[in-house]
């Protein structure tokens, strides 16, 4: 959705109207500093061009430059940090160089352009390395603003604080409740990207998330729970203001009251059919197939950092490897509204497409950038598929070089309209899981799920008999191997039961933070191994 001149004028007017929200950081278009303008300002294009000229002049075969302007708040919605950054990436004879710093000025653009080429050229002295960037049409002056309803940086922090306080008061009106944590976090990033292939685009993206924990005590029995649905999103303050949070609080309290009436039970180690709610299913996907289908990871590019992939021979396994049951289909996108990996252009300047990673249980594609799509050129040609990047390049800010990062993932729901409670009702005997922390090995293969929180008996794992939750299992865990787990998928919840959750992760050396959304329905898995994770051998 490129913005029109009319939209741009409106944005400009909005900025003028909210002059109380200052744009204090300075930029040097010439010799004199002036306030950093909104990212759509055309003078930034000229500034970016200085870096590209310098890189081209120094001999880069390809170069791109990113300018980022970042804002973030503390836990109470008050703006707490702001920074500018610029980073230049250059390609010389198949070798990449990168240089970055905090200053937006013509001189600095030129220095970074030259430095990036110097970094690349120095390493190109060794053995030959080939980079074939997948073709991407140049973006001519594209501008995009993530369509959020309420820019958290344009409203008074008091509004956010008052809202949070009202939630606390509302919650604590229920007898026995006490709010432990209640925070709201917001980020905003403006980015301009220019490349030697003629691309110039700018975008403004937002991120919102919350932490909301409260306890409920009835007599000497108590429980602590987090309100679902506040994991990271690509939304504005509407994540809080427009969400039915009071209804969610009432529902959660009712659920906790019900849980307190259930008997507590220690873990009986064994294998059980298990219903996972949408959040747990999304967590399993984010820990296993999400990282495993990153092509650079599968080829060993992260071997010295977070690890590689259980898809150990990506080119041979592509198109034939069975990653799960035939009811498992996983697609990826960077376009869904509210997704935290959603952008208009990735950090290669590519418009990301919606693509399928797993079709009916079979691995059919990988997450790619322009460089890593080049590694699949032969495969795509042999199968009559277009040679293109899926647009998964991303950098945390311009200080960092882009890496391939996980896009938003979507696990296809089942055709029958079934929610978590329906799936539980359909279970003769087994367990139901509503909350889980997943930890996997360095090939994202063998994993352990912890169904409790440290230091407290706060799990949401239930014994199910004849379709009813009959006891709360305390301090449980699961063990799994990713391929077997996904092959044991028995049933998938219906379209209305799917939920989106945001997951933070790190990748690379030096490590960069990232975020992507995973949308999944609740699901039933056959014969999951239940363990006591606190038991030593």
């Amino acid at each position, binding site marked *: 959705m490129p913005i029109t001149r009319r939209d741009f004028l409106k944005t400009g007017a909005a900025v003028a109207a909210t002059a109380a929200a200052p744009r204090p950081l300075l930029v040097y278009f010439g010799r004199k500093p002036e306030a950093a303008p909104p990212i759509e300002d055309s003078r930034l294009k000229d500034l970016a061009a200085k870096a590209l000229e310098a890189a081209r002049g120094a001999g880069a075969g390809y170069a791109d430059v990113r300018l980022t302007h970042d804002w973030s708040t503390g836990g*109470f919605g008050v703006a707490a940090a702001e920074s500018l*950054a610029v980073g230049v990436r250059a390609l010389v004879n198949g070798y990449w160089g990168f240089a970055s710093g905090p200053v937006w000025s013509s001189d600095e653009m030129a220095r970074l352009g030259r430095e990036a080429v110097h970094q690349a050229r120095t390493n190109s002295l060794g053995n030959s390395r080939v980079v074939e960037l997948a073709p991407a049409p140049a973006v001519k002056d594209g501008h995009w603003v993530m369509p959020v309803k309420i820019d958290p940086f344009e409203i008074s922090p008091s509004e956010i604080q008052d809202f949070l306080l009202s939630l606390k008061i509302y919650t604590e009106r229920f007898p026995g409740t006490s709010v432990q944590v209640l925070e709201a976090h917001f980020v905003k990033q403006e980015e301009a990207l220019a490349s030697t292939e003629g691309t110039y685009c700018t975008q403004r993206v937002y991120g919102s998330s919350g932490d909301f924990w409260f306890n409920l005590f009835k007599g000497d029995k108590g429980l602590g729970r987090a309100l679902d649905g506040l994991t990271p999103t690509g939304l504005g303050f509407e994540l809080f203001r427009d969400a039915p949070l009071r209804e969610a609080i009432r529902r959660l309290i009712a659920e906790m009251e019900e849980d307190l009436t259930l008997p507590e039970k220690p873990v009986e180690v064994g294998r059980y059919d298990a219903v996972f709610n949408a959040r747990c299913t999304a967590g399993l996907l984010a820990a296993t197939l999400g990282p495993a289908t990153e092509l650079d990871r599968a080829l060993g590019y992260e071997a010295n950092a977070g690890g590689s992939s259980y898809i150990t021979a990506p080119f041979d396994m592509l198109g034939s490897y069975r990653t799960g049951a035939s009811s498992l289909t996983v697609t990826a996108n960077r376009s869904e509204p509210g997704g935290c990996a959603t952008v208009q252009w990735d950090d290669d300047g590519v418009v990301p497409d919606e693509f399928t990673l797993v079709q009916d249980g079979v691995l059919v594609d990988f997450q790619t950038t322009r460089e890593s799509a080049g590694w699949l050129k032969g495969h795509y040609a042999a199968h009559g598929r277009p040679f293109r990047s899926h647009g998964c390049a991303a950098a945390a800010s311009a200080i960092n070089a882009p890496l391939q990062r996980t896009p938003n993932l979507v696990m296809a729901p089942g055709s029958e309209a079934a929610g978590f409670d329906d799936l539980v009702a359909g279970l003769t005997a087994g367990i139901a899981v509503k909350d889980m922390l997943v930890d996997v090995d360095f090939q994202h293969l*063998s994993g352990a799920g912890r169904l409790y929180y440290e230091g407290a008996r706060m799990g949401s794992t239930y014994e199910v008999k004849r379709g009813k939750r009959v006891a709360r299992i305390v301090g449980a865990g699961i063990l799994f191997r990713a391929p077997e787990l996904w092959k044991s998928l028995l049933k998938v919840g219906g379209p209305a039961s799917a939920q989106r959750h945001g997951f933070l992760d790190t990748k690379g050396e030096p490590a960069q933070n990232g975020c992507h959304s995973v949308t999944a329905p609740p699901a039933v898995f056959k014969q999951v191994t239940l363990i006591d994770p606190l038991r030593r051998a």
Partner: protein
Amino acid sequence: MSGLDRFLRRDDSLRFLSREECAALVDRIRGFAQGGGKTEVAVTSWWSGEVRWARNRVSLASDRRDIRVDVSRTLPAMTGDGNVTTNQLDDVSLTAAVRQAERSARRRKHFRTDIVTSAPDFQYAKPAIWSDTSYGVTTEERGRIARALLDPAEAAGMLSAGYLEVRAQGTASTPAEKPLMYAQQTTAQCSMTVRDPEGRGSGWAGGSSYDWTRIDPEALARRALEKCLASRNPVTIEPGRYTVILEPQAAHDLVVWVVDALNGRQAAENQPGPLNAGYDTALRLGRSKLGLKVVDERLTISHDPMDPALGVIPFADDGWGPYPVQAVTWIDHGVLTALSYGRGYAVTQLTDNVPIAPRMAYRMSGGPTSVEEMIATTKRGLLVTRFSGVHPLSEGLFTGLTRDGLWLIENGKISKAVKNLRFTDSPWFLLNSLEQLGEPVPVFSPDAPAIVPPLKARDFSFTSAIDAI
């Protein structure tokens, strides 16, 4: 001239802010304050030169730098402080940051006990944390080293992936109405993973120090390659209790959690955990295990910032202004002798103005046994290269995975490579089940230096087999 201009125009011989520049910057920021009260400022500026490689080719070489200025304002008669961070050094940006901090201070309702008004004139150590050599490792040199490291792997038909970084940083911190504290520090690190192209084996080696000359990258490359070759085609063994020989890196991966637990006397006194001795009903106090034996009596865990291999920035700050990082013996021959506490706790709870700074740098005492002798004296056990993904489960209990080289020892000899295992155990149990200790050596720990011996311990609990290599 603004600090920004100077940052811009300097030649490349100074890639971060000097003490004088930080001092001028802090003066400038204080000048923007309105409404009295206190202004505290922390400034960090850094440069980093990096090279990363994978599949035997350099995948990215980079030169990066950035600044971080933290401004904290406390207003008179206000209970809260306001904190704002920026990376710009011009007057307009800094004035805006100070105003924003003041607005935020007015809004905050947090209580802040301002009992600690004046600090004594602390004496600060001058640790060895700067190396001209590290700062002088050029792009060309980094490239040459990287190529020299991946060539042997390629010649052996293996795949190397790794990372080399040299970094310099200036850190300044200012208490209100006190002179500036400043330290400049270099760090260097090099680590690599060599894998079999079919994914049948993996070996790792790494080193870190403030001083690049203390890292021997070629030796690391040989070690990672040897480990990869020796780890190929592992066989599955049953999880269970095993005698383990932990190489220094593997020992560090667990002991670092012991050191982490030593950071916080208040926590040890108030929260259930391995260092809590329970609630004293007579005194109505939670008690820590200070004075009690907590690990094997052969063990001493200490840190002296003046140790030439364990230098750290000589000041700490937990919100009440800087104070010195002093030498401390945490555990003396098995007895817990110190737990860290900050200035607030020192003054309010101990009527003592000299805190013990928390830190992750440490030295662990060793013993006379080499890893070879440990192996030779083991009937059945496992030799561990390192652990990955170690994290707490509950009150001192941890889980994690072996990674990049695990071997079975039978009858005093390494008999075969075995598949990785998940453990569920406590580092406190480990340090109470020691059999032998070796010579302490520096390990890979880029954020805080550590000197750790190899060790042999009995009955370490592995709870499941994992197939990842």
